[in-house]
């Protein structure tokens, strides 16, 4: 460990998504040491899973790549992947943190050549694509993954086959017997940027996700539309691979609902409009219907709503559907009341996309392990540590970046006070 003076200048950033990356580079480029901790094998978080993002509908690979370059070129940033913060003690300016670094089973000597993946015959459901396809048990998530080192599934590492795969590595980087290590650090500030996970759609029983193959979720749909996704970007329905040309988006699926997530996630309306554009771009003869209670196109995005409204291939139904059934052809049938006319409807679609909301990781699997931390009823972080992006509130990428920059400033403030 460095001396007390230097240690006081380190900022811990927990979570390597767009918020954590932003806080890390902003603080490091100002001259402070940053330790960035990410629980997944690669950085990029939720944004890396998106096909396109707001407001220009460009690929997030571009925005992330710039941040990866800034990290690579900055010696003040250390990052740990497959790592989780287990305990925080102390107070602002002088925290002690214990970090568990889980084994990757591949060392940093990995060149990303892919020989191991070619040799490996064991396949597992792909978590990056929400289990919609199978992938090799040793891999990296996609061509633009950072760091580009491969990683091995822990269950596979225990097998004899893992040893065979290890032998295929030309640089000897694969170590199936690698173990977890515990790291202790002194830091001046903690920025919690653990982001969000899609709300578990199976809990919304009347909508039949998990029961009907052609009812999917908005995050799955991002992968379905992405060139690295399970269908190489072809928008087809899961049951029979038929082109999904008649697509329904159901807003507030499990959101603004006391039975599920009580709050509004602020992004799902726009996300569905964006995804409607994926369908309309891929199939000019497609028909999209968006079911909504009321539309919330936050602040500067009103223009996007207008653009969506101008598309004759997109229709709107002011209604929160009551339930979904399946007809004899495997078409999901959306049932409810048109609240503008009072008429009941039962409309069949090729594919139904549930616009599920954001559940903060800090509510589920990334609670702040610090006695001085406070979280609100929904699990968003309110105090004790600094919270950036969706750990603080549900929000879009641009606002997450703003929030993360603000937290870099606050963290620097804490580090300066410590001296």
């Amino acid at each position, binding site marked *: 460990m460095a001396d007390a003076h230097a240690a006081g200048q380190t900022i811990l950033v927990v979570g390597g998504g767009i918020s954590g990356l932003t806080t890390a580079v902003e603080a490091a480029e100002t001259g402070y040491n940053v330790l960035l901790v990410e629980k997944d094998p690669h950085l990029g978080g939720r944004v890396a899973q998106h096909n396109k993002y707001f407001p220009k509908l460009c690929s997030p690979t571009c925005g992330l790549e710039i941040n990866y370059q800034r990290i690579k070129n900055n010696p003040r940033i250390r990052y740990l992947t497959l790592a989780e913060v287990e305990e925080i003690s102390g107070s602002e300016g002088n925290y002690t943190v214990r970090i568990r670094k889980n084994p990757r089973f591949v060392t940093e000597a990995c060149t990303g050549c892919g020989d191991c993946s070619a040799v490996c015959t064991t396949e597992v459901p792909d978590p990056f694509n929400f289990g919609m396809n199978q992938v090799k048990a040793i891999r990296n998530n996609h061509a633009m993954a950072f760091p580009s080192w491969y990683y091995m599934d822990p269950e596979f590492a225990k097998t004899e086959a893992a040893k065979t795969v290890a032998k295929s590595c030309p640089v000897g980087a694969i170590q199936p017997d690698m173990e977890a290590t515990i790291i202790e650090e002194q830091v001046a500030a903690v920025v919690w940027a653990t982001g969000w996970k899609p709300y578990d759609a199976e809990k919304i029983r*009347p909508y039949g996700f998990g029961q009907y193959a052609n009812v999917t979720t908005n995050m799955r749909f991002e992968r379905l539309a992405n060139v690295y996704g399970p269908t190489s970007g072809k928008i087809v329905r899961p049951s029979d691979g038929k082109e999904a040309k008649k697509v329904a988006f159901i807003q*507030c699926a499990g959101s*603004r*609902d*006391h*039975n599920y997530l009580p709050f509004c996630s602020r992004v799902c309306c726009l996300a569905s409009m964006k995804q409607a554009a994926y369908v309309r771009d891929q199939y000019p003869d497609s028909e999209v219907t968006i079911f909504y*209670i009321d539309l919330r196109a936050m602040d500067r995005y009103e223009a996007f709503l207008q653009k969506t409204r101008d598309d004759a291939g997109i229709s709107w139904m*002011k*209604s*929160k*559907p*009551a*339930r979904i059934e399946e007809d004899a052809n495997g078409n999901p049938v959306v*049932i*409810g*009341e*048109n*609240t503008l006319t*009072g008429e*009941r409807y039962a409309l069949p679609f090729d594919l139904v996309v549930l616009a599920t909301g954001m559940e903060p990781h800090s509510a589920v699997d990334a609670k702040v392990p610090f006695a001085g931390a406070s979280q609100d009823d929904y699990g968003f972080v309110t105090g004790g540590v600094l919270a950036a992006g969706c750990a603080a509130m549900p929000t879009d990428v641009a606002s997450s970046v703003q929030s993360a920059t603000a937290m870099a400033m606050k963290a620097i403030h804490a580090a300066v006070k410590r001296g």
Partner: protein
Amino acid sequence: MTYDLTFAKDVYQKAEMGHWIKMCMQCGVCAGSCPLRAHWQHSPRQLFQMVRAGKRDEVLKSSDMWMCTSCYNCIVRCPRELPITHIIHGLARYAETQGAADPKQPTRRFAVDVFWKNITATGRVGEAMLTMRLYFQDGIGAGIQRGLEMRDSALGMLKTRRLNPIPFRGKIKGYDGFTKMLAKAAELEQKLENKA
């Protein structure tokens, strides 16, 4: 059509559970969930909006709230946890106390003229009398016809001891306490009525 600006306030204060109507966000889940929606002129969502809009006569004279079978689908699904079934019953009761309910509405006739009289007379439901009164509500001919139609169900219920065939079974134990409870309930209801 007359708009009555005091109507919503009356419902919030005087109808049982009426204040919950304020919380409705007009999403339509209740309407889509109701198995009898086809038989309602207005869905619960529409009724709530009509209350807010001050359509006193249209709401109170409507037959809609008498159509509810208390299946509780709407309560289970309502995203804002409105006790919709209870609100609907509260509206029906309010319509009745206001003398606005349609006296010919079949469910109202059963509830007020048959069921209430039956249960308050002895403190228990006399199934045999209840069924007979219901069947013969529209005359002797109609009563005999409905009785014959339902014969198999009645015999099945008798066999499985779900129906007590004795028409007069006398009062329950503690009938005095029971009537005191009813009197107290009526008093509370009157208090609600006098409010504001």
